[in-house]
């Protein structure tokens, strides 16, 4: 079921996904621009190269499961699902418009969305539930949970991390989009998370760190999980908020953007010119 896509076309898919993200931010409500761009490569690699999924059978019991715990990255997920064939790409134009099923945070009505998310600190427990289900049923499915780094300030993340390690859920993979920024500034100034990888290790997870924009490195790490039998895997993906657009990259104010027509046109030109 997995679509194995070569390096060149992974880049192309990621670029198309970024273009959709920028387009959705020019809609009536704007969108979560920076954090969607920071996780675009992770989503691309998961959906186009790693996960065992079939857009034609989104509820196949043998599928791998993905949960966007950082639910505010919804537009990135919608773009990825559409590009992967879960629903027509044209539907992305309805984002945040009355009557659309594409809400600001993911909902189950959208094909490919497993669970509604967006209240932070829920995804890891949900992912553990799917992982334990697969194990009980004797299925090889894995659960991938994409978490924001700011989200890790929610205590429920660590509650679930303890439970997952205690259960030996090695079919659970947490990917942390470590862009270092949250709504009002730098995570390390607001509520520090470092040493982040060591924290996960201390919770008895197998941990790796990777450049979250390096497709090959992401693919190698994610495809090879579990890295240690009996331990869940945490991939700390070092990313840049707003990655792909030099004009917004690394800036806290990229968190949410409502793009004017002029700004939208500028960002689209920059994307096409590869101005990163």
């Amino acid at each position, binding site marked *: 079921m997995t679509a194995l896509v070569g390096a060149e076309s992974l880049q192309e898919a990621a670029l198309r996904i970024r273009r959709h993200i920028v387009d959705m931010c020019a809609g009536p409500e704007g969108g979560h621009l920076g954090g969607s761009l920071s996780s675009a490569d992770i989503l691309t690699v998961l959906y186009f190269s790693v996960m065992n999924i079939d857009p034609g059978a989104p509820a196949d*019991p043998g599928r791998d499961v993905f949960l966007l715990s950082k639910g505010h990255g919804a537009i990135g997920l919608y773009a990825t699902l559409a590009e992967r064939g879960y629903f027509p790409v044209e539907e992305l134009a309805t984002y945040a418009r009355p009557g659309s099923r594409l809400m600001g945070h993911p909902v*189950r009505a959208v094909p490919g969305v*497993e*669970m*509604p998310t967006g*209240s932070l*600190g*829920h995804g*890891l*427990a*949900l*992912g*553990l*539930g*799917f*992982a*334990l*289900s*697969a194990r*009980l*049923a004797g299925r090889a499915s894995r*659960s991938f949970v994409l978490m924001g780094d700011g989200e890790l300030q929610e205590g*429920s993340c660590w*509650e*679930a991390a*303890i*439970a997952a390690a*205690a*259960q030996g859920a090695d079919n659970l993979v947490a990917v942390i989009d470590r862009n270092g920024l949250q709504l009002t500034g730098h995570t390390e100034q607001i509520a520090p998370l470092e040493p982040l990888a060591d924290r996960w290790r201390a919770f008895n997870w197998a941990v790796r760190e990777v450049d979250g924009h390096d497709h090959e490195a992401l693919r190698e790490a994610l495809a090879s999980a579990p890295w240690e039998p009996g331990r869940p895997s945490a991939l700390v993906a070092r990313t840049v908020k707003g990655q792909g657009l030099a004009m917004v990259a690394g800036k806290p104010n990229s968190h949410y953007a409502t793009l004017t027509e002029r700004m939208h046109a500028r960002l689209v030109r920059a994307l096409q010119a590869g101005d990163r």
Partner: protein
Amino acid sequence: MSATATRTAYRDALVARMATDPAAVCLDTDTGLFSGVDFGDAAARYLNLGIAEHTLMGVAAGMAASGWRPYVNTMAAFAGARALEAVKIDIAYNALPVRVMATHAGVSAGHLGPTHHALEDLAVMRALPNMTVVVPADADSTVALLAQVAELPGPAYVRLGRKPTPSLPDGAPPPVLGTIQRLRAGEEVVLVAAGPLPVLAALGAAEALAAEDGLDAGVLHAHTLKPFDAETLVAATGRARLVVTVEEHWPAGGLGSAVAEELAERAPRPLLRIAMPDRFVDVVGGQEHIVAENGITPAGVAARVRARLTATDLS
């Protein structure tokens, strides 16, 4: 009358169900109610997740979405407050078949104090769309209602006590989920109660009001707070001089509120709501002591009814 805790009846019923229902899973938060060996061949479907109520609800939602039917175990104080957001978003929003089995409800945690009392749980659970809310009144009704809850396609909250409480008198028809159960015929004063001690208090009060005051007093057992059986309520209270609710819950949002809402909308009647007072119980006492101190006894309920009827007659 024998005395069994509703949580004990539930525990035994779930152990039996796990043996026959291959989709049932029991998720625990170190409550001590279960041990893996209780489940024999089904032990792999018993998971103790640690003291982690939010995670409990999330894991249960993930498992229910994968086809399992989780029974989750925690204290009512934590299900309805600490883990509420996970119950709301992960379980109720998705209408998943998770059974939230909440022990130590009301003041049944007794001397453990207000941190472990749950007098708001029915209000918050009733507020959630898709949620079925059930309050068994004794061991037999727990077993009977649990068997029906097990068949629901969506989520349910089941409120259980901690220590033994007396059985309801014999002779009542078996409880049917979603339907008010008539425990005693009577139309002049109609008492509506939920939970072990309130139902017994209502039955005793009705008997006293009939014997000593010549009142035709009936008792309805409202074990299902959501969906609420307004039809039976309206039909059974059509001739009532007074409708009385009795519950082990704060006044806001529980049984009294449900009855008030339905009657106000459909068929207004004089109403007296007897509940736990709107304050934290900061004195030591067991469940029966605390409930009795607050007037939820046969004599206490009868006295409140008499006072209200007298005041009405004089006005």
